[in-house]
């Protein structure tokens, strides 16, 4: 019996959750496992694999100087996959130099840790990613949205 199932049954026996909730929790834990075991390439039930990474920027200022600006970028996920494969081809010395340059710019990403075999998991996690940034000051209002679709 898995640890999750044991915990759910314990919560049920303690009366913290009812039978319906326990069933929902158990099925929620089992569905991704079943989907992975039946087809390694398939995503969890009911979720489609993201195809694009979208970045939307809406900027409004007081209207006196420049007016509103909208930026909409759509990048295919395939490009991300190909980019990671490209990074895996680069020699270790080049990756170390790139890591060093990024760290100098305040980006603490280790490119040597990004491997094609971990990519599918990363993309699956990206499907649930949404980054919303709202910035407001006296003259401008900027809204940035990054998400996958």
């Amino acid at each position, binding site marked *: 019996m898995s640890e999750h199932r044991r915990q759910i049954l314990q919560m049920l026996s303690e009366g913290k959750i009812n039978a319906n909730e326990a069933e929902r929790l158990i099925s929620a834990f089992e569905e991704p496992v079943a989907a992975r075991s039946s087809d390694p390439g398939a995503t969890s039930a009911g979720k489609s694999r993201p195809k*694009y990474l979208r970045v939307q920027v809406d900027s409004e200022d007081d209207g006196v100087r*420049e*007016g*509103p*600006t*909208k*930026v*909409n*970028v*759509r*990048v*295919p996920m*395939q*490009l991300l*996959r*190909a*980019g990671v*494969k*490209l990074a895996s*081809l*680069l*020699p270790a010395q080049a990756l170390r130099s790139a890591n060093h340059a990024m760290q100098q710019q305040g980006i603490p990403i280790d490119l040597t840790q990004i491997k094609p075999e971990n990519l599918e998991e990363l993309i699956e996690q990206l499907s649930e990613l949404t980054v919303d940034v709202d910035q407001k000051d006296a003259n401008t209002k900027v809204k940035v949205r990054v998400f996958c679709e």
Partner: protein
Amino acid sequence: MIPFVAVVSLCNQESRTFRLWIPLFLIWLLLLPLGILLSPFIFIACLLCRVNPLGGVAVMWQILNAITDTKLEVEHRSAGMSFHIL
């Protein structure tokens, strides 16, 4: 599939849209003989940099395929621009 056309749209304040279709397939056709001519040099450069040449070519092909459907739009009060690779 590799991109065959790129569309650049420009619109101005009077809502006039200028759309330019760039036939990328002609560029690929022109680059193909150049790539074949340069392939020995690319192969040697890959070996010097300790990069697998076949892997490099495969990844470049994947990148070329992956850029299809990339879209960039910028709208401003006075003008707008969009770039779409088809």
